[in-house]
């Protein structure tokens, strides 16, 4: 095809800067909280994966006398059954992160598509799904998880499932609200005018455009999941005993506060660091992606 005189007289290309494209990532890395949070979280992930290499003892087997004070063999002492406290907390990282990642992944994988579909299609589909969502949202997350665990029984998998289900409505609402705001944009209309199928518009046009607030929500969910899991273990409904869960350790430690103070401090500090790191990542992401208002609206879950 030949270019017409008009097209060959096209304006000179404005050389676009690459800087703009990466600005969100750069902003995130430049924000102190985002950077520190990420580094701490990465360290935690390494600890969880390499737990057998880092922990000096088994988390489940007796490694000496009960309730020892910190010493060269047991840096933070031992618990009431003579297990090495440090090793148990290290292995506990694994449990916590498993629950966090599992619950966040589950709620996102279910909530995101459901929210997009309900937002895009509207009508009675929307009405029904939103009423169910409202119902789940009306129940506090921890109470919801408590009821699910009480009926299904305890265990890491069931706990993750319970927390994941409880966190799903927040994703549905967030995805739905974002979809609604995009549904009438010109590029969605343009995609329709190009003969794109509904499925393609929902998952190839709309979905990539609503991801920023979803990322933030994933991080928020992960941190809430760790807290809820710990709380449930603390009341004895989370991970059943021999497993080294932080919440479970905190609970048992109450009886030995005067004999072994590290028993309570160590899991508590681990919990605080993990949740703090996730929180910092979430805040960094929010700043970088400019989604502060979007997530605040749906953050009514903690």
């Amino acid at each position, binding site marked *: 095809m030949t270019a017409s005189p008009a097209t060959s*007289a096209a304006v*000179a*290309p404005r050389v676009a800067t690459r800087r*703009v494209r990466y600005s969100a990532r750069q902003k995130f890395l430049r924000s102190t909280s985002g950077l520190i949070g990420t580094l701490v979280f990465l360290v935690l992930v390494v600890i969880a994966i390499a737990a057998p290499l880092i922990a000096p003892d088994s988390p489940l087997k007796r490694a000496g006398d009960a309730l020892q004070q910190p010493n060269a063999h047991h840096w933070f002492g031992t618990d009431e059954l003579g297990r090495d406290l440090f090793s148990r907390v290290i292995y506990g990282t694994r449990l916590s992160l498993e629950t966090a990642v599992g619950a966040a992944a589950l709620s996102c994988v279910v909530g995101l598509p459901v929210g997009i579909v309900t937002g895009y299609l509207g009508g009675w589909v929307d009405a029904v799904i939103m009423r169910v969502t409202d119902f789940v949202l009306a129940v506090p997350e921890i109470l919801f998880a408590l009821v699910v665990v009480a009926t299904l029984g305890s265990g890491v998998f069931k706990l993750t499932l319970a927390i994941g289900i409880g966190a799903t409505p927040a994703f549905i609402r967030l995805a739905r609200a974002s979809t609604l705001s995009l549904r009438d944009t010109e590029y969605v209309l343009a995609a*329709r005018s190009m*003969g794109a199928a509904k499925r393609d518009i929902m998952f190839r046009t709309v979905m990539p455009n609503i991801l920023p607030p979803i990322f933030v929500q994933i991080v928020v969910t992960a941190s809430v999941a760790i807290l809820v899991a710990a709380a449930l273990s603390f009341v004895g409904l989370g991970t059943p005993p021999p497993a080294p869960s932080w919440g479970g350790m905190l609970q048992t430690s109450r009886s030995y506060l005067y004999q072994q103070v590290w028993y309570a401090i160590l899991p508590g500090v681990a919990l605080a660091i993990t949740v703090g790191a996730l929180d910092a990542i979430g805040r960094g992401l929010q700043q970088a992606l400019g989604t502060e208002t979007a997530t605040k609206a749906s953050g009514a879950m903690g």
Partner: protein
Amino acid sequence: MVAVAPVLDISDLTVEFDTPEGTVRAVDHVSYSVDAGETLAVVGETGCGKSVTVLAALGLLGAGRIVSGAVTFGGADLLDMPAKKRRRLLGHDLTMVFQNPMTALNPVMTVGRQVAETLLVHEPKMSRGTARDRAIELLAMVGVPQPDVRYNQYPHEFSGGMCQRVVIAMAIANKPRLIVADEPTTAVDVTIQAQLLDLLRVAREETGAAVVMITHDLGVVAEVAERVAVMYAGRVVEMAPVEQIFRSPRHPYTVGLLSCLPRLDRDVSELIPIPGAPPDLRDVARGCPFEPRCEMSAARSACQNTRPPLMPADPNSVSACHFVDEVESWARARRGNVEEAA
């Protein structure tokens, strides 16, 4: 006009929107058609139903309700067609160019892929590589410099004019029979406007497509159109070949629109705006919708009580005015008055 079947034929289309304040009739028994290779301009003020008419005709309306009317495309009924069949036409035989190029492209997909997608949607067997090559070819054709580099860039790295070129590339990718351009030049500045209009003309010549150009800019109309439909308050009030619209308009509203336009060939020291605003479509008076703003009507009872039908004004044009015969002399007198006053 030669007796060929029109590419797009809209007849008697009425579209209503339900709002909490009542029913709005945004499109009121509108009929127009375009022949192959022809450009029809649809002009009118904002909110007069220009865009709603085509969106409804193409089945892209979000909220409104089509009350009556028929739309055929190449002989096939567009409104009764199953959605799947209509989707095959959309983007292939029948494409659209939108008003705001910066928002008509998906911000998180590279422009090249968006062009390639329009090819792939309608030809799933095409290989990704072929689609890519074709897309680069199309970008070059619409005057995007360094198309192979620009292929991998995102819309925010493009200027508005360049984005509109990409949108036009998508519109002509599948060699359509009809291009609907919804105010394609409103959002870009004047120099780019001229380039884009030329580009659309070239695109039309190369694909042989008919064009429906929706605009409120009479300069654009003069530039590209062969025929003009003037819309007011959801109705077509005049339809005529383009020279005739400019030389001897047959409806007071068209006269008003033209006198809002600065012209080089006439010594007019002041532009005359049309007083008032278009009527509230929730509550259009019984009579002629333009009557409250019409200087020619002078509150005659026919204007106030009877809605004027669209009637042939002369062999080439139709007009919806009770006193169509008076328009010409009234317009001349009005011009005289203004020149005298100046």
